[in-house]
Protein backbone atom coordinates (compact mmCIF):
# COMPACT_ATOMS: atom_id res chain seq x y z
CA UNK A 1 0.00 0.00 0.00
CA UNK A 2 2.12 2.92 1.26
CA UNK A 3 5.60 2.97 -0.17
CA UNK A 4 8.65 3.68 1.95
CA UNK A 5 8.78 7.14 0.39
CA UNK A 6 5.17 7.82 1.33
CA UNK A 7 5.80 6.83 4.93
CA UNK A 8 8.86 9.06 5.11
CA UNK A 9 6.80 11.91 3.60
CA UNK A 10 4.16 11.44 6.29
CA UNK A 11 6.79 11.44 9.02
CA UNK A 12 8.55 14.53 7.66
CA UNK A 13 5.22 16.32 7.32
CA UNK A 14 4.12 15.54 10.86
CA UNK A 15 7.52 16.48 12.26
CA UNK A 16 7.46 19.72 10.30
CA UNK A 17 3.91 20.58 11.37
CA UNK A 18 4.56 19.93 15.06
CA UNK A 19 7.81 21.85 15.14
CA UNK A 20 6.42 24.78 13.13
CA UNK A 21 3.31 24.98 15.27
CA UNK A 22 5.35 24.99 18.45
CA UNK A 23 7.60 27.76 17.13
CA UNK A 24 4.57 29.66 15.84
CA UNK A 25 2.84 29.62 19.22
CA UNK A 26 6.01 30.78 20.93
CA UNK A 27 6.54 33.64 18.46
CA UNK A 28 2.89 34.35 17.78
CA UNK A 29 1.76 34.72 21.39
CA UNK A 30 3.81 37.79 22.31
CA UNK A 31 3.29 39.23 18.82
CA UNK A 32 -0.50 38.80 19.02
CA UNK A 33 -0.58 40.19 22.56
CA UNK A 34 1.38 43.24 21.49
CA UNK A 35 -0.89 43.79 18.49
CA UNK A 36 -3.99 43.44 20.66
CA UNK A 37 -2.79 45.92 23.28
CA UNK A 38 -0.71 48.52 21.50
CA UNK A 39 -1.96 51.95 20.56
CA UNK A 40 0.99 52.28 18.19
CA UNK A 41 -0.07 54.29 15.15
CA UNK A 42 1.60 52.12 12.54
CA UNK A 43 0.52 48.75 13.87
CA UNK A 44 -1.51 48.24 10.67
CA UNK A 45 1.78 47.89 8.84
CA UNK A 46 2.73 44.97 11.05
CA UNK A 47 -0.71 43.46 10.68
CA UNK A 48 -0.45 43.75 6.91
CA UNK A 49 2.98 42.13 6.86
CA UNK A 50 1.77 39.23 8.98
CA UNK A 51 -1.31 38.83 6.78
CA UNK A 52 0.71 38.83 3.52
CA UNK A 53 1.01 35.02 3.25
CA UNK A 54 -2.79 34.88 3.18
CA UNK A 55 -2.93 36.44 -0.28
CA UNK A 56 0.56 36.07 -1.71
CA UNK A 57 1.12 33.14 -4.11
CA UNK A 58 3.25 30.68 -2.11
CA UNK A 59 5.78 30.65 -4.95
CA UNK A 60 6.42 34.37 -4.45
CA UNK A 61 7.07 33.81 -0.77
CA UNK A 62 9.19 30.76 -1.60
CA UNK A 63 11.17 32.71 -4.14
CA UNK A 64 12.07 35.46 -1.69
CA UNK A 65 12.87 32.91 0.98
CA UNK A 66 15.21 31.19 -1.43
CA UNK A 67 16.87 34.52 -2.17
CA UNK A 68 17.24 35.18 1.54
CA UNK A 69 18.29 31.71 2.64
CA UNK A 70 20.07 30.37 -0.46
CA UNK A 71 23.79 29.69 -0.61
CA UNK A 72 24.65 33.01 -2.25
CA UNK A 73 22.62 35.14 0.11
CA UNK A 74 24.24 37.47 2.65
CA UNK A 75 22.56 35.45 5.40
CA UNK A 76 24.18 32.24 4.18
CA UNK A 77 27.56 33.98 4.11
CA UNK A 78 27.12 35.08 7.68
CA UNK A 79 26.15 31.53 8.62
CA UNK A 80 29.17 30.17 6.78
CA UNK A 81 31.51 32.57 8.58
CA UNK A 82 30.30 30.95 11.78
CA UNK A 83 30.99 27.50 10.37
CA UNK A 84 27.39 26.82 9.36
CA UNK A 85 25.88 26.55 5.94
CA UNK A 86 22.91 27.73 3.96
CA UNK A 87 19.64 26.29 5.18
CA UNK A 88 17.93 26.25 1.81
CA UNK A 89 16.97 22.69 0.78
CA UNK A 90 17.20 21.50 4.40
CA UNK A 91 14.59 20.62 6.98
CA UNK A 92 15.52 23.77 8.93
CA UNK A 93 14.82 25.89 5.86
CA UNK A 94 11.46 24.19 5.56
CA UNK A 95 10.65 25.05 9.17
CA UNK A 96 11.58 28.71 8.62
CA UNK A 97 9.40 28.82 5.51
CA UNK A 98 6.46 27.16 7.24
CA UNK A 99 6.64 29.50 10.20
CA UNK A 100 6.45 32.56 7.97
CA UNK A 101 3.83 31.03 5.71
CA UNK A 102 1.51 29.99 8.58
CA UNK A 103 2.10 33.02 10.81
CA UNK A 104 -1.24 34.76 10.08
CA UNK A 105 -3.15 31.58 10.89
CA UNK A 106 -1.71 31.63 14.38
CA UNK A 107 -1.43 35.36 15.07
CA UNK A 108 -4.90 36.35 13.95
CA UNK A 109 -6.96 34.00 16.14
CA UNK A 110 -4.69 34.77 19.09
CA UNK A 111 -4.99 38.50 18.49
CA UNK A 112 -8.77 38.17 18.30
CA UNK A 113 -9.01 36.34 21.61
CA UNK A 114 -6.53 38.64 23.33
CA UNK A 115 -8.54 41.65 22.17
CA UNK A 116 -11.62 40.23 23.82
CA UNK A 117 -9.84 39.91 27.17
CA UNK A 118 -11.19 42.89 29.07
CA UNK A 119 -8.65 45.38 30.31
CA UNK A 120 -10.53 45.32 33.58
CA UNK A 121 -9.71 41.63 34.13
CA UNK A 122 -6.03 42.47 33.93
CA UNK A 123 -6.50 45.41 36.29
CA UNK A 124 -8.34 43.22 38.78
CA UNK A 125 -5.40 40.81 38.75
CA UNK A 126 -3.03 43.71 39.37
CA UNK A 127 -5.04 44.85 42.40
CA UNK A 128 -4.87 41.27 43.68
CA UNK A 129 -1.10 41.34 43.62
CA UNK A 130 -0.26 39.75 40.26
CA UNK A 131 2.72 41.17 38.35
CA UNK A 132 2.54 41.88 34.62
CA UNK A 133 3.87 38.50 33.51
CA UNK A 134 1.88 36.69 36.20
CA UNK A 135 -1.40 38.24 35.07
CA UNK A 136 -0.62 37.53 31.44
CA UNK A 137 -0.26 33.81 32.13
CA UNK A 138 -2.99 33.49 34.75
CA UNK A 139 -5.64 35.76 33.26
CA UNK A 140 -5.03 36.66 29.61
CA UNK A 141 -3.92 33.19 28.47
CA UNK A 142 -6.73 31.21 30.14
CA UNK A 143 -9.33 33.71 28.95
CA UNK A 144 -7.95 33.39 25.43
CA UNK A 145 -7.78 29.60 25.46
CA UNK A 146 -10.15 29.13 22.55
CA UNK A 147 -7.81 31.31 20.52
CA UNK A 148 -4.91 29.01 21.38
CA UNK A 149 -6.81 25.93 20.26
CA UNK A 150 -7.81 27.61 17.02
CA UNK A 151 -4.31 28.96 16.42
CA UNK A 152 -2.68 25.61 17.14
CA UNK A 153 -4.98 23.58 14.93
CA UNK A 154 -4.92 26.06 12.05
CA UNK A 155 -1.17 26.51 12.23
CA UNK A 156 -0.71 22.75 12.18
CA UNK A 157 -3.22 22.08 9.40
CA UNK A 158 -1.96 24.89 7.24
CA UNK A 159 1.63 23.70 7.56
CA UNK A 160 0.59 20.19 6.58
CA UNK A 161 -1.12 21.61 3.51
CA UNK A 162 1.62 23.85 2.15
CA UNK A 163 3.01 23.15 -1.27
CA UNK A 164 4.43 26.13 -3.09
CA UNK A 165 6.82 27.33 -0.46
CA UNK A 166 8.04 23.82 0.19
CA UNK A 167 8.64 23.23 -3.47
CA UNK A 168 10.68 26.41 -3.80
CA UNK A 169 12.94 26.06 -0.77
CA UNK A 170 12.62 22.42 0.22
CA UNK A 171 13.62 20.65 -2.94
CA UNK A 172 11.74 17.41 -2.16
CA UNK A 173 14.65 15.47 -0.67
CA UNK A 174 13.25 12.15 0.64
CA UNK A 175 13.40 11.87 4.44
CA UNK A 176 14.60 15.44 4.70
CA UNK A 177 12.30 17.83 2.87
CA UNK A 178 9.96 15.51 1.02
CA UNK A 179 6.50 16.26 2.38
CA UNK A 180 3.02 14.85 1.78
CA UNK A 181 1.63 17.50 -0.52
CA UNK A 182 4.55 17.04 -2.89
CA UNK A 183 4.35 13.26 -2.63
CA UNK A 184 0.75 13.48 -3.87
CA UNK A 185 1.84 15.64 -6.75
CA UNK A 186 4.59 13.15 -7.64
CA UNK A 187 2.12 10.26 -7.59
CA UNK A 188 -0.23 12.10 -9.90
CA UNK A 189 2.64 12.94 -12.25
CA UNK A 190 3.57 9.26 -12.30
CA UNK A 191 -0.11 8.30 -12.78
CA UNK A 192 -0.11 6.35 -9.50
CA UNK A 193 -3.69 7.31 -8.71
CA UNK A 194 -4.28 4.69 -6.01
CA UNK A 195 -1.48 6.02 -3.88
CA UNK A 196 -2.45 9.62 -4.63
CA UNK A 197 -6.00 8.80 -3.50
CA UNK A 198 -4.78 7.25 -0.31
CA UNK A 199 -2.64 10.22 0.68
CA UNK A 200 -5.06 12.90 -0.56
CA UNK A 201 -8.03 11.21 1.09
CA UNK A 202 -6.13 10.83 4.33
CA UNK A 203 -5.24 14.52 4.30
CA UNK A 204 -8.81 15.51 3.49
CA UNK A 205 -10.25 13.53 6.38
CA UNK A 206 -7.59 14.73 8.83
CA UNK A 207 -8.12 18.38 7.89
CA UNK A 208 -11.87 17.99 8.14
CA UNK A 209 -11.65 16.47 11.58
CA UNK A 210 -9.32 19.20 12.77
CA UNK A 211 -11.66 21.95 11.56
CA UNK A 212 -14.66 20.25 13.20
CA UNK A 213 -12.65 20.36 16.38
CA UNK A 214 -11.94 24.08 15.99
CA UNK A 215 -15.55 24.96 15.26
CA UNK A 216 -16.79 22.85 18.15
CA UNK A 217 -14.43 24.54 20.51
CA UNK A 218 -15.13 28.01 19.28
CA UNK A 219 -18.64 28.49 17.97
CA UNK A 220 -17.99 32.02 16.77
CA UNK A 221 -14.91 31.23 14.83
CA UNK A 222 -14.39 32.23 11.25
CA UNK A 223 -11.05 32.20 9.46
CA UNK A 224 -11.88 35.35 7.58
CA UNK A 225 -13.24 37.22 10.54
CA UNK A 226 -11.14 40.06 11.69
CA UNK A 227 -12.07 41.93 14.79
CA UNK A 228 -10.20 44.72 16.53
Amino acid sequence: MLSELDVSAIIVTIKLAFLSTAILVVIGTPLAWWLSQTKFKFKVIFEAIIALPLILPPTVLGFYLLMTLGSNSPLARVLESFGGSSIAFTFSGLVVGSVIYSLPFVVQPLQNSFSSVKRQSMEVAATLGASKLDRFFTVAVPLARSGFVTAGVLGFAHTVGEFGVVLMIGGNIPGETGVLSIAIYDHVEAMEYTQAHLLAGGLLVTSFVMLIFVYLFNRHFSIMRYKD
Partner: protein
Amino acid sequence: MIECKLNIQLEGFKLDAKFTIPDKGITVVFGPSGSGKTTLLRAIAGLEKGDTGFLKVGDSIWQSDHNFVPTHKRQIGYVFQDAALFDHLNVEGNLNYVIKRKTGLTKDFIDSNYTLLDIKPLINRSTVQLSGGEKQRVGIARALLTNPKILLLDEPLSALDLKRKNEILPYLDSLHSQLEIPILYVTHSQDETSRLADHIMLIEDGKIIGNGPINEMLTRFDLPLSHSGDAISIFDARVMSRDTDFNLMHLEFKGGQFIVPDNKLPIKSLVRIRVAARDVSITKKKQTDTSILNIFPAVVEEMVPEGDAQVMVRLTLKGVVLLACLTRKSASSLKLDQGLSVFIQVKSVAILS
Protein backbone atom coordinates in the same frame (compact mmCIF):
# COMPACT_ATOMS: atom_id res chain seq x y z
CA MET B 1 -4.25 59.11 57.79
CA ILE B 2 -4.35 59.13 54.02
CA GLU B 3 -2.67 62.02 52.31
CA CYS B 4 -3.38 62.51 48.66
CA LYS B 5 -2.28 65.10 46.16
CA LEU B 6 -2.81 63.70 42.71
CA ASN B 7 -3.08 65.22 39.28
CA ILE B 8 -4.31 63.09 36.44
CA GLN B 9 -4.74 64.37 32.93
CA LEU B 10 -6.98 62.24 30.76
CA GLU B 11 -8.43 62.96 27.36
CA GLY B 12 -10.87 65.82 27.97
CA PHE B 13 -10.76 65.47 31.74
CA LYS B 14 -8.52 66.59 34.54
CA LEU B 15 -8.48 65.30 38.08
CA ASP B 16 -6.95 67.55 40.67
CA ALA B 17 -7.41 65.86 44.01
CA LYS B 18 -5.80 67.16 47.15
CA PHE B 19 -7.14 65.88 50.45
CA THR B 20 -6.50 64.00 53.64
CA ILE B 21 -8.92 61.51 55.10
CA PRO B 22 -8.89 59.68 58.42
CA ASP B 23 -7.64 56.11 58.84
CA LYS B 24 -10.88 54.64 59.94
CA GLY B 25 -14.45 54.60 58.79
CA ILE B 26 -16.14 55.01 55.44
CA THR B 27 -15.46 58.07 53.38
CA VAL B 28 -18.05 58.34 50.65
CA VAL B 29 -16.83 59.98 47.47
CA PHE B 30 -19.98 61.68 46.28
CA GLY B 31 -20.55 63.54 43.06
CA PRO B 32 -22.43 63.51 39.77
CA SER B 33 -21.43 61.02 37.10
CA GLY B 34 -18.43 62.15 35.12
CA SER B 35 -17.08 64.16 38.04
CA GLY B 36 -14.02 61.95 38.42
CA LYS B 37 -14.98 59.64 41.27
CA THR B 38 -13.81 56.48 39.55
CA THR B 39 -10.70 58.19 38.21
CA LEU B 40 -9.79 59.16 41.75
CA LEU B 41 -10.14 55.57 42.95
CA ARG B 42 -8.11 54.31 39.98
CA ALA B 43 -5.41 56.86 40.72
CA ILE B 44 -5.19 55.70 44.33
CA ALA B 45 -4.91 52.10 43.09
CA GLY B 46 -2.18 53.10 40.66
CA LEU B 47 -4.28 52.19 37.64
CA GLU B 48 -4.04 55.76 36.38
CA LYS B 49 -0.71 57.47 36.51
CA GLY B 50 -0.17 61.19 36.73
CA ASP B 51 3.11 62.97 36.11
CA THR B 52 3.40 64.33 39.60
CA GLY B 53 1.68 63.64 42.83
CA PHE B 54 1.93 62.37 46.34
CA LEU B 55 0.03 59.54 47.96
CA LYS B 56 0.56 58.17 51.41
CA VAL B 57 -1.66 55.54 52.96
CA GLY B 58 -0.87 54.79 56.58
CA ASP B 59 2.90 54.54 56.68
CA SER B 60 3.47 53.56 53.05
CA ILE B 61 4.18 56.10 50.37
CA TRP B 62 2.74 54.86 47.09
CA GLN B 63 3.56 57.84 45.00
CA SER B 64 5.93 60.76 45.30
CA ASP B 65 8.02 62.81 42.90
CA HIS B 66 10.51 60.08 42.15
CA ASN B 67 8.58 57.01 43.06
CA PHE B 68 5.52 55.23 41.70
CA VAL B 69 4.58 51.94 43.30
CA PRO B 70 2.84 49.74 40.70
CA THR B 71 -0.66 48.51 41.45
CA HIS B 72 0.34 44.93 42.21
CA LYS B 73 2.71 46.11 44.94
CA ARG B 74 0.14 48.34 46.64
CA GLN B 75 -1.76 46.75 49.49
CA ILE B 76 -5.20 47.72 48.25
CA GLY B 77 -8.55 46.05 48.08
CA TYR B 78 -10.43 47.20 45.01
CA VAL B 79 -14.07 46.29 44.49
CA PHE B 80 -15.23 46.97 40.96
CA GLN B 81 -18.68 48.13 39.92
CA ASP B 82 -19.74 44.76 38.50
CA ALA B 83 -17.61 42.64 40.84
CA ALA B 84 -15.34 41.69 37.92
CA LEU B 85 -14.84 38.09 39.01
CA PHE B 86 -12.61 35.96 36.80
CA ASP B 87 -14.97 33.86 34.74
CA HIS B 88 -12.31 31.26 34.00
CA LEU B 89 -12.19 30.40 37.70
CA ASN B 90 -14.93 29.36 40.10
CA VAL B 91 -15.62 31.18 43.36
CA GLU B 92 -12.92 29.28 45.22
CA GLY B 93 -10.47 29.87 42.37
CA ASN B 94 -11.16 33.59 42.48
CA LEU B 95 -10.46 33.68 46.19
CA ASN B 96 -7.42 31.41 45.93
CA TYR B 97 -5.98 33.75 43.31
CA VAL B 98 -5.24 36.10 46.18
CA ILE B 99 -4.33 33.47 48.76
CA LYS B 100 -1.66 32.05 46.43
CA ARG B 101 -0.05 35.44 45.98
CA LYS B 102 -0.06 36.77 49.52
CA THR B 103 2.25 35.34 52.09
CA GLY B 104 1.42 35.12 55.75
CA LEU B 105 -2.36 35.00 55.52
CA THR B 106 -3.52 33.01 58.51
CA LYS B 107 -6.40 30.59 58.33
CA ASP B 108 -8.21 32.69 60.93
CA PHE B 109 -7.91 35.76 58.75
CA ILE B 110 -9.26 33.93 55.73
CA ASP B 111 -12.09 32.36 57.71
CA SER B 112 -13.10 35.63 59.31
CA ASN B 113 -13.39 37.22 55.86
CA TYR B 114 -15.49 34.32 54.65
CA THR B 115 -17.74 34.62 57.68
CA LEU B 116 -18.06 38.37 57.30
CA LEU B 117 -19.45 37.95 53.78
CA ASP B 118 -21.02 34.54 54.22
CA ILE B 119 -18.91 32.98 51.49
CA LYS B 120 -19.07 29.32 52.57
CA PRO B 121 -22.33 28.48 50.74
CA LEU B 122 -20.96 29.93 47.50
CA ILE B 123 -17.46 28.50 47.49
CA ASN B 124 -17.93 25.65 45.01
CA ARG B 125 -20.12 27.52 42.55
CA SER B 126 -19.05 28.80 39.19
CA THR B 127 -19.21 32.56 38.78
CA VAL B 128 -22.06 32.38 36.26
CA GLN B 129 -24.26 30.70 38.85
CA LEU B 130 -24.13 33.68 41.18
CA SER B 131 -26.67 36.48 41.47
CA GLY B 132 -25.44 40.06 41.20
CA GLY B 133 -25.41 40.43 44.95
CA GLU B 134 -23.55 37.16 45.51
CA LYS B 135 -20.96 38.16 42.91
CA GLN B 136 -20.39 41.39 44.75
CA ARG B 137 -19.99 39.54 48.05
CA VAL B 138 -17.30 37.35 46.49
CA GLY B 139 -15.74 40.46 44.94
CA ILE B 140 -15.55 42.15 48.33
CA ALA B 141 -14.20 39.02 50.07
CA ARG B 142 -11.55 38.68 47.34
CA ALA B 143 -10.53 42.31 47.83
CA LEU B 144 -10.34 41.89 51.60
CA LEU B 145 -8.11 38.81 51.31
CA THR B 146 -5.32 41.08 50.08
CA ASN B 147 -5.22 42.31 53.69
CA PRO B 148 -5.46 45.83 52.34
CA LYS B 149 -4.36 49.08 53.92
CA ILE B 150 -7.33 50.71 52.26
CA LEU B 151 -10.50 49.33 50.72
CA LEU B 152 -11.76 51.02 47.56
CA LEU B 153 -15.32 50.38 46.48
CA ASP B 154 -16.44 51.72 43.12
CA GLU B 155 -20.24 51.96 43.10
CA PRO B 156 -20.56 48.38 44.32
CA LEU B 157 -24.36 48.47 44.33
CA SER B 158 -25.06 50.40 41.16
CA ALA B 159 -25.43 47.31 38.99
CA LEU B 160 -27.93 45.71 41.38
CA ASP B 161 -31.69 46.03 41.59
CA LEU B 162 -33.35 47.18 44.81
CA LYS B 163 -33.86 43.68 46.16
CA ARG B 164 -30.20 42.73 45.64
CA LYS B 165 -29.11 46.06 47.10
CA ASN B 166 -31.02 45.35 50.27
CA GLU B 167 -29.46 41.89 50.36
CA ILE B 168 -25.94 43.25 50.35
CA LEU B 169 -26.35 46.39 52.46
CA PRO B 170 -26.24 44.46 55.77
CA TYR B 171 -22.85 43.07 54.69
CA LEU B 172 -21.62 46.59 54.04
CA ASP B 173 -22.89 47.58 57.48
CA SER B 174 -20.80 44.83 59.03
CA LEU B 175 -17.74 45.91 57.02
CA HIS B 176 -18.37 49.34 58.43
CA SER B 177 -18.52 48.21 62.01
CA GLN B 178 -15.85 45.50 61.91
CA LEU B 179 -13.05 46.72 59.65
CA GLU B 180 -10.20 48.72 61.08
CA ILE B 181 -9.08 50.07 57.72
CA PRO B 182 -10.20 53.18 55.87
CA ILE B 183 -12.80 52.62 53.19
CA LEU B 184 -13.31 54.87 50.18
CA TYR B 185 -16.77 54.30 48.79
CA VAL B 186 -17.76 55.85 45.48
CA THR B 187 -21.43 56.40 44.84
CA HIS B 188 -23.95 58.90 43.61
CA SER B 189 -26.73 57.41 45.71
CA GLN B 190 -28.00 59.51 48.61
CA ASP B 191 -29.40 56.44 50.32
CA GLU B 192 -26.09 54.61 50.40
CA THR B 193 -24.32 57.76 51.49
CA SER B 194 -26.63 58.48 54.39
CA ARG B 195 -26.55 54.88 55.54
CA LEU B 196 -22.82 54.21 55.30
CA ALA B 197 -20.78 57.39 55.32
CA ASP B 198 -18.79 58.64 58.28
CA HIS B 199 -17.18 61.23 56.07
CA ILE B 200 -18.14 62.68 52.75
CA MET B 201 -15.81 63.90 50.08
CA LEU B 202 -17.63 65.96 47.47
CA ILE B 203 -16.19 65.95 44.00
CA GLU B 204 -17.19 68.07 41.04
CA ASP B 205 -15.47 68.42 37.66
CA GLY B 206 -12.40 66.62 38.96
CA LYS B 207 -12.00 68.85 41.99
CA ILE B 208 -12.63 68.13 45.65
CA ILE B 209 -15.07 70.81 46.76
CA GLY B 210 -15.60 69.63 50.31
CA ASN B 211 -14.35 66.93 52.63
CA GLY B 212 -15.39 66.33 56.23
CA PRO B 213 -17.69 64.55 58.69
CA ILE B 214 -21.02 63.57 57.16
CA ASN B 215 -23.38 65.92 58.96
CA GLU B 216 -21.11 68.89 58.45
CA MET B 217 -21.04 68.18 54.72
CA LEU B 218 -24.82 67.76 54.62
CA THR B 219 -25.58 71.01 56.41
CA ARG B 220 -22.97 73.46 55.18
CA PHE B 221 -24.62 76.12 53.05
CA ASP B 222 -21.54 76.65 50.90
CA LEU B 223 -21.85 73.06 49.63
CA PRO B 224 -24.51 71.67 47.30
CA LEU B 225 -25.97 68.93 49.51
CA SER B 226 -27.83 71.35 51.77
CA HIS B 227 -29.52 72.93 48.78
CA SER B 228 -31.14 69.93 47.16
CA GLY B 229 -34.86 69.38 47.60
CA ASP B 230 -34.11 66.35 49.74
CA ALA B 231 -31.67 67.99 52.14
CA ILE B 232 -31.17 65.94 55.30
CA SER B 233 -29.25 65.82 58.55
CA ILE B 234 -27.73 62.70 60.00
CA PHE B 235 -26.59 61.87 63.48
CA ASP B 236 -26.07 58.98 65.84
CA ALA B 237 -28.33 57.95 68.69
CA ARG B 238 -28.66 55.09 71.12
CA VAL B 239 -31.71 53.02 72.01
CA MET B 240 -32.38 53.84 75.67
CA SER B 241 -35.73 52.42 76.69
CA ARG B 242 -39.02 51.22 75.30
CA ASP B 243 -42.59 52.18 76.01
CA THR B 244 -44.47 48.91 75.75
CA ASP B 245 -47.91 50.53 76.29
CA PHE B 246 -47.66 52.42 73.03
CA ASN B 247 -45.03 50.27 71.35
CA LEU B 248 -42.49 53.08 71.12
CA MET B 249 -38.80 53.38 71.83
CA HIS B 250 -36.69 56.23 73.09
CA LEU B 251 -33.51 57.15 71.27
CA GLU B 252 -31.02 59.33 73.03
CA PHE B 253 -28.82 61.69 71.09
CA LYS B 254 -26.70 64.65 72.11
CA GLY B 255 -29.58 67.07 71.70
CA GLY B 256 -32.25 65.13 73.58
CA GLN B 257 -34.47 62.11 73.11
CA PHE B 258 -36.43 60.99 70.10
CA ILE B 259 -39.60 58.97 70.51
CA VAL B 260 -40.16 56.66 67.57
CA PRO B 261 -42.12 53.48 66.78
CA ASP B 262 -40.40 50.45 68.26
CA ASN B 263 -38.53 48.45 65.65
CA LYS B 264 -37.28 45.83 68.14
CA LEU B 265 -33.68 46.98 68.18
CA PRO B 266 -32.02 45.89 71.44
CA ILE B 267 -31.51 48.43 74.19
CA LYS B 268 -28.11 50.18 74.04
CA SER B 269 -27.68 49.57 70.33
CA LEU B 270 -26.29 52.43 68.31
CA VAL B 271 -28.47 53.72 65.49
CA ARG B 272 -28.10 56.28 62.81
CA ILE B 273 -30.93 58.77 62.40
CA ARG B 274 -31.89 60.71 59.34
CA VAL B 275 -34.07 63.79 59.55
CA ALA B 276 -35.30 65.38 56.34
CA ALA B 277 -35.26 69.19 56.29
CA ARG B 278 -38.84 69.28 55.07
CA ASP B 279 -40.01 67.24 58.08
CA VAL B 280 -38.78 69.88 60.53
CA SER B 281 -40.98 72.82 61.48
CA ILE B 282 -40.24 75.72 63.79
CA THR B 283 -42.32 77.35 66.53
CA LYS B 284 -41.45 80.23 68.79
CA LYS B 285 -43.17 78.78 71.86
CA LYS B 286 -43.15 75.14 72.80
CA GLN B 287 -46.42 73.67 71.53
CA THR B 288 -48.31 71.44 73.90
CA ASP B 289 -51.51 70.74 72.00
CA THR B 290 -49.84 68.99 69.09
CA SER B 291 -49.60 65.44 67.82
CA ILE B 292 -45.89 65.81 67.29
CA LEU B 293 -43.84 63.99 69.93
CA ASN B 294 -40.37 65.16 69.07
CA ILE B 295 -39.97 68.79 70.09
CA PHE B 296 -36.58 70.28 71.01
CA PRO B 297 -35.26 73.71 71.87
CA ALA B 298 -32.79 74.96 69.27
CA VAL B 299 -30.95 78.05 68.11
CA VAL B 300 -31.05 79.45 64.58
CA GLU B 301 -27.53 79.47 63.20
CA GLU B 302 -27.91 80.57 59.61
CA MET B 303 -30.61 80.96 56.98
CA VAL B 304 -30.46 81.10 53.20
CA PRO B 305 -33.21 81.55 50.63
CA GLU B 306 -33.98 78.36 48.76
CA GLY B 307 -35.69 79.19 45.48
CA ASP B 308 -38.34 81.91 45.46
CA ALA B 309 -40.67 80.71 48.17
CA GLN B 310 -38.53 78.85 50.69
CA VAL B 311 -35.73 79.29 53.15
CA MET B 312 -33.32 76.69 54.48
CA VAL B 313 -32.55 77.15 58.17
CA ARG B 314 -29.62 75.57 59.98
CA LEU B 315 -30.22 75.08 63.68
CA THR B 316 -28.14 73.72 66.53
CA LEU B 317 -29.44 71.85 69.48
CA LYS B 318 -26.68 71.28 72.03
CA GLY B 319 -24.09 70.90 69.29
CA VAL B 320 -26.19 68.77 66.94
CA VAL B 321 -26.85 70.50 63.64
CA LEU B 322 -30.19 70.13 61.85
CA LEU B 323 -31.76 71.64 58.76
CA ALA B 324 -35.30 72.88 58.46
CA CYS B 325 -36.94 73.89 55.23
CA LEU B 326 -39.68 76.51 55.65
CA THR B 327 -41.62 78.85 53.44
CA ARG B 328 -40.30 82.37 53.25
CA LYS B 329 -43.67 83.52 54.56
CA SER B 330 -43.35 81.44 57.76
CA ALA B 331 -39.80 82.60 58.34
CA SER B 332 -40.91 86.16 57.97
CA SER B 333 -43.95 85.90 60.26
CA LEU B 334 -41.84 84.14 62.90
CA LYS B 335 -39.22 86.89 62.46
CA LEU B 336 -36.52 84.23 62.32
CA ASP B 337 -33.02 85.54 62.61
CA GLN B 338 -29.57 84.32 63.50
CA GLY B 339 -29.17 83.55 67.17
CA LEU B 340 -32.90 83.30 67.85
CA SER B 341 -33.99 80.58 70.28
CA VAL B 342 -36.86 78.53 68.92
CA PHE B 343 -38.44 75.11 69.19
CA ILE B 344 -38.24 72.59 66.42
CA GLN B 345 -40.85 69.95 65.75
CA VAL B 346 -39.67 66.85 63.95
CA LYS B 347 -42.51 65.16 62.15
CA SER B 348 -40.66 61.97 61.25
CA VAL B 349 -37.25 60.39 61.57
CA ALA B 350 -35.77 57.49 59.67
CA ILE B 351 -33.63 54.89 61.40
CA LEU B 352 -30.92 53.78 59.01
CA SER B 353 -29.28 50.82 60.66
